[in-house]
């Protein structure tokens, strides 16, 4: 043998000690993540968590702006809020639910086209999807007022082909107008949150290897079967993320209902906003947002569990 050493047969009775400097370095390293987190987590704790807790206490206070508010464990606020505004809750969930389904139906083909069929146009199409973000969404929602105005070309066309008669029969429009109807609000919600659906869909579709389509085709799958059995399941993370990113903000939105709807299309966001900013009934506003938060969290938790995706967190 050229060297003179060999392994120890077994662990030595007294293992060599770890140098103190190493121990110090290890201890220092353990504190690094906490130092990094400090500012960000503190910010969220003070300006996100604390307000939520405070909100909870506000919701059981009574009083007025003049006399001041006191915690009186007045749970009746919740009851009153629910009995008075349950239609708005239901409306919010129904409108945002429909908008989410529409976003999926409209967004999926576009995401699929960009991911698999766009070729060298891919980047341009992506820019076009993101670009509307850069025009204030209020301005774009106001543009829908123009598009859906009673004398607008779009509405005239819909009237001429009697499509509005159908939607009126379905109860989503009234007479020969689109503005100030459920259709307008859902249309606006769908439009506003469509990019939030398309981008996660695209991200997960982009990761799907195009060769999988060929493999599926090789194994006797029709294009539709390939989609149903291969592409769609693989894009599930995108579907879950997209639906959540659409549904959550849509359910709390009040801008579309305010600008495109009438008093009959008010959503829960409108109620919270007016209770807070106009009626100045803070306990009711707090109770309503607490209920909304609870409902959303319950739906999201159930949905994530059902869809079996933990990638979001």
């Amino acid at each position, binding site marked *: 043998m*050229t060297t003179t*050493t060999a*392994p120890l047969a077994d662990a030595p009775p007294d293992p*060599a000690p770890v140098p103190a400097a190493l121990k110090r370095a290890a201890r220092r390293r353990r504190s690094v993540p906490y130092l990094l987190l400090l500012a960000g987590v503190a910010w969220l704790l003070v300006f996100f968590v604390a307000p939520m807790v405070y909100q909870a206490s506000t919701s059981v206070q009574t009083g007025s702006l003049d006399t001041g508010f006191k915690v009186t464990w007045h749970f009746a606020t919740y009851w009153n809020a629910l009995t008075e505004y349950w239609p708005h809750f239901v409306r919010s969930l129904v409108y945002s639910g429909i908008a989410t389904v529409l976003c999926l139906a409209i967004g999926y083909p576009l995401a699929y086209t960009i991911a698999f069929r766009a070729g060298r146009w891919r980047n341009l199409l992506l820019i076009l999807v993101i670009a509307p973000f850069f025009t204030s969404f209020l301005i774009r929602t106001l543009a829908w007022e123009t598009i859906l105005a009673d004398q607008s070309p779009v509405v005239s066309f819909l009237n001429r082909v009697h499509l509005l008669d159908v939607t009126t029969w379905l109860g989503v429009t009234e007479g020969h107008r689109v503005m100030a109807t459920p259709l307008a609000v859902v249309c606006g919600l769908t439009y506003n949150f469509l990019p939030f659906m398309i981008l996660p869909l695209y991200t997960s579709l982009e990761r799907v290897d195009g060769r999988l389509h060929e493999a599926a085709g090789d194994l006797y799958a029709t294009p539709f079967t390939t989609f149903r059995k291969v592409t769609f399941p693989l894009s599930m993370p995108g579907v879950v993320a997209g639906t959540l990113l659409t549904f959550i903000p849509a359910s709390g939105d009040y801008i579309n209902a305010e600008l495109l709807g009438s008093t009959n299309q008010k959503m829960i966001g409108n109620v919270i906003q007016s209770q807070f900013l106009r009626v100045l009934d803070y306990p009711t506003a707090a109770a309503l947002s607490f209920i909304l938060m609870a409902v959303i969290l319950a739906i999201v938790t159930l949905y994530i569990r059902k869809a079996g995706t933990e990638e979001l967190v």
Partner: protein
Amino acid sequence: MTTPSTTSEATGDAVRLTGISKTYGSFTAVHPLDLTVPAGSFFALLGASGCGKTTTLRMIAGLEDPSGGSVRLGGRDVTALPPYKRPVNTVFQNYALFPHLDIYENVAFGLRRRGIKSVKQQVGEMLDLVQLGPLARRRPHQLSGGQQQRVAVARALINKPQVLLLDEPLGALDLKLRRQMQLELKRIQTEVGITFIHVTHDQEEAMTMADTVAVMNAGRVEQMGAPADLYENPASTFVANFLGTSNLIEAEVTGVLGGTLHLVSAGQKLTLPAARSRADVTAGDRVLAGVRPEKITLAHRDDEDAIPAGRNRVQGRIVDSSFIGVSTQYLVDSPVGAELEVFVPNVERDARLVPGAPVILHWNPEHTFGLDAAQDIDAGTESDDEPAPGGGGAPAAAGAASAVPAGGAGGAAA
């Protein structure tokens, strides 16, 4: 054979590990280990994935803190030094070239960090050494695997480290390129005279390149020595099976006579030079008698009388044969063991040697080695034999990944 840690801090040692160990929770990646690497040598740490060889290497580099023990480089204790203060450099698995820097800046990186201003000449010379001069302004992703590998070597070597650590440096290359790079690395090592410590799971690679090989298994060094020495005189069944292949025959010692052990296995008599037995045995003990497949000659039973006297003989029947060009590989079932392997060079092929044919295996008793029968006879066979890890380039998680037992992360990725 054991070197006490009290011996002089010999100037001839590039690396000396004393009782070094690494544990992750309850999993022991490296058992307390002593290892000395002589200066100027090409040293290979050989073992299957998860055996602790990469962890050992990373502890030398300072990328992993040992749970106990010390690391000395050229006599200096560096155990507590961070990687950037150690005079060693590493060629990483999959190279870890900086993607946002070009080749020139990758190679110059270490010099610049040490505050050396004029790097042009040195970088130029180093790129010439690895024959990459014209590609200096390319980015790593524009290079082929073999070129990236050479950049990684140049980037480490330019710092003239006391020791160059190579972590599976050829694992991501295809077979032909790997052969070429083995010679290339050997040439560079001879040229610069720096100590190389090379971690690999490929026994052929280790034997081709290194002058000393340490075979590791389950966090321990099984055996260490020159490649030919390890091959001819394996000390354990693991080494016998992992380094090439061995036929291991379980036998009983019937007597010891004049430096020769007389054995019997399934009624067949064998002899073994006592000096070549790792097990200290006397009559009545059991022993494993080993012989390499290429040492065996295969004769048809009809030719039994032509076999010279004094050779070890085993009767059997061919079950399978595969032609592999320079030789033919036979599998022979015999009373002493199933599926004995025999390599017969293709000089004059005997047409009677087909599956089903009765044969006699015979070999020079001097070529037999003896091992302790208390070991697992199959240690180091194919179940430990894994494909090159990380060939696809998926970055293994943190350093801890190197300590995951075989069949964990690596197996799932495959």
